[in-house]
């Protein structure tokens, strides 16, 4: 049993281990160990192309996370007010948005954007085209569903009498939302925000279809690998892995803490 579990973990994490290990290699080839060094991190962070891709990725991830958190929370709050078939229908749509593979989202958003842009561009003075905003739109589509699910689980677990107690103590509906509902939902919204950020930051598939001329970090990594793997890419990859890891752990901790009774 122990050995079996360990083998699974080795299988899962060995590739990541190679990436991280390779980033400390002083030699020029990622695959041939020539001694320990942090040089490649320095090189990576002074490479303007990498820094530009990183900035684009952070920008996309942040805007996506903010929009997803807001729209997802509103979706969950709205769904609470409808019942029966309407709700079942929207529930199904949320689950579908989560289960659809990234490549399908990528292709379908690409087709949708191309169609829409072709239709409206002749009518507009500016030209709409693929780019960071198209990536954000596609990511928000998926992440809104994730946030909505998290927030809804929290809403359903929330004691309805807390809202009534607040109203009983003279708080207006908006006052109740601000002082009771929002603080109680905050952990799930924050966790949703972090998950959305992580997803967007490391997404390659969807971005590859709709990013147009803009280069995100995963797209940069993919295109430079075709020119040969240097430890510089390993360094970038290690940073991405580490930050994703931290964000996911943070989201987990927040969710777990807020799940405690009366927490």
């Amino acid at each position, binding site marked *: 049993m122990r050995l079996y579990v360990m083998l699974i973990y080795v299988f899962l994490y060995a590739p990541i281990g190679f990436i991280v290990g390779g980033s400390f290699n002083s030699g020029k080839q990622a695959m041939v160990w020539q001694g320990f060094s942090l040089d490649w991190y320095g090189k990576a962070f002074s490479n303007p192309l990498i820094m530009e891709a990183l900035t684009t990725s952070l920008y996309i991830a942040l805007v996506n996370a903010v929009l997803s958190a807001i729209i997802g929370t509103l979706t969950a709050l709205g769904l609470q007010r409808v019942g029966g078939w309407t709700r079942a229908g929207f529930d199904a749509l949320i689950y579908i948005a989560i289960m659809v593979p990234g490549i399908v989202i990528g292709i379908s958003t690409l087709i949708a954007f191309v169609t829409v842009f072709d239709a409206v561009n002749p009518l507009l003075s500016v030209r709409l085209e693929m780019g960071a905003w198209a990536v954000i739109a596609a990511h928000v589509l998926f992440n809104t569903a994730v946030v909505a699910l998290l927030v809804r689980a929290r809403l359903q677990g929330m*004691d309805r*009498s*807390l809202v*009534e*107690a*607040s*109203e*009983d*103590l*003279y*708080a*207006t*509906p908006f*006052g*109740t939302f601000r*002082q*009771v509902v929002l*603080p*109680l939902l905050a952990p799930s919204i924050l966790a949703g925000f972090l998950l959305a950020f992580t997803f967007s930051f490391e997404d390659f598939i969807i971005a590859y279809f709709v990013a147009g001329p803009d280069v995100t970090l995963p797209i940069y990594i993919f295109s430079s690998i075709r020119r040969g793997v240097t430890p510089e890419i390993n360094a970038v990859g290690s940073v991405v892995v580490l930050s994703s890891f931290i964000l996911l752990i943070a989201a987990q901790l927040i969710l777990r803490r807020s799940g405690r*009774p*009366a*927490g």
Partner: protein
Amino acid sequence: MNLFMYQLHRGVVGEVDSVIEFRKVTKRFGDVVAVADNDLAVMPGEFLSILGPSGCGKTTSLRMMAGFEQPTSGEVFIRGANVTGVPAYRRPVNMVFQHYALFPHLAVSANVSYGLRQRSPKPAAAEIARAVDEALAMVRLSGYGQRRIHELSGGQQQRVALARALINRPAVLLLDEPLAALDRKLRRDMQIELQNLQRDVGITFLLVTHDQEEALSMSDRVCVMREGRIVQTGSPRELYDRPVSRYVADFVGKTNFFKGPSAGEVLSIRPELIDIAASEAELPAGVSARFSVKVLNRIFLGEHTEYVVAHARLGEFMVMAPRKTERHAGLYEIGEMIAAGWRPEAERILPND
């Protein structure tokens, strides 16, 4: 002429002396009639209980007073003003919820000050702090202001809920089975504490319960409900001594029912009004009905003993014998033949509803 007098003059406001009032209030949930055509007036400063079995419409009544539900028909008045249709946050009443509904993300003091902080203009911070201290002292929780809610015991949470409501000095404090979640010993203490608190603050209390002992021991008046209807309102003593129907007699205290003079009536005799003795001759003078009975069961309860006895024609019934009566004869044994009887005034003929 102030606004109130003007409204009174115009007939906009109702009975001046009631602090909260139902007029022909009915509440339906689909096919279920939760509250049926009820009239109820709560008087200032009184401790009124609504008593009835689970599902009889007690909570629904309370929720219509608080403003969480609106009547299907009829009107609700608070301090003479018609508040039908007015939402909860604009009604001068406060509620203590069954499971307290304390805000888990706020400390004790922030919970208690919540109502004051919703006022506009908002009172000064120092004034709020003083009021919170006062309210916490009132429920004997001084110094607990910075605690988190989940650090408190059930009894302490209950007292925070009371302080959170009373700090607003509501027209009426509504309590929905506030003691149901507490264990037996604590419940007894809280009953006394609630009574004292009500006397000290002079605020009208309206308590809902299915526990007749609780209703009788704490309230000035009790209102008995059955299937959405109020069947009798009166002092605990009135309900006990002069119940209007078999239902009330059965629900309020223990009693024995015998065949009544007609099909629609029953004879009710309280077990403590039945005398027992070793023989019919030894029953006290004034006891008119005398029967020879057999002891079927005996439960020793300390200050009195509960007997179940059987008579050939009347069937089984219960007798509550105080220690005093037994001093002469000692406890009667199971299987023993003894005598039982009662005075004419112990008999109560009630509609068999």
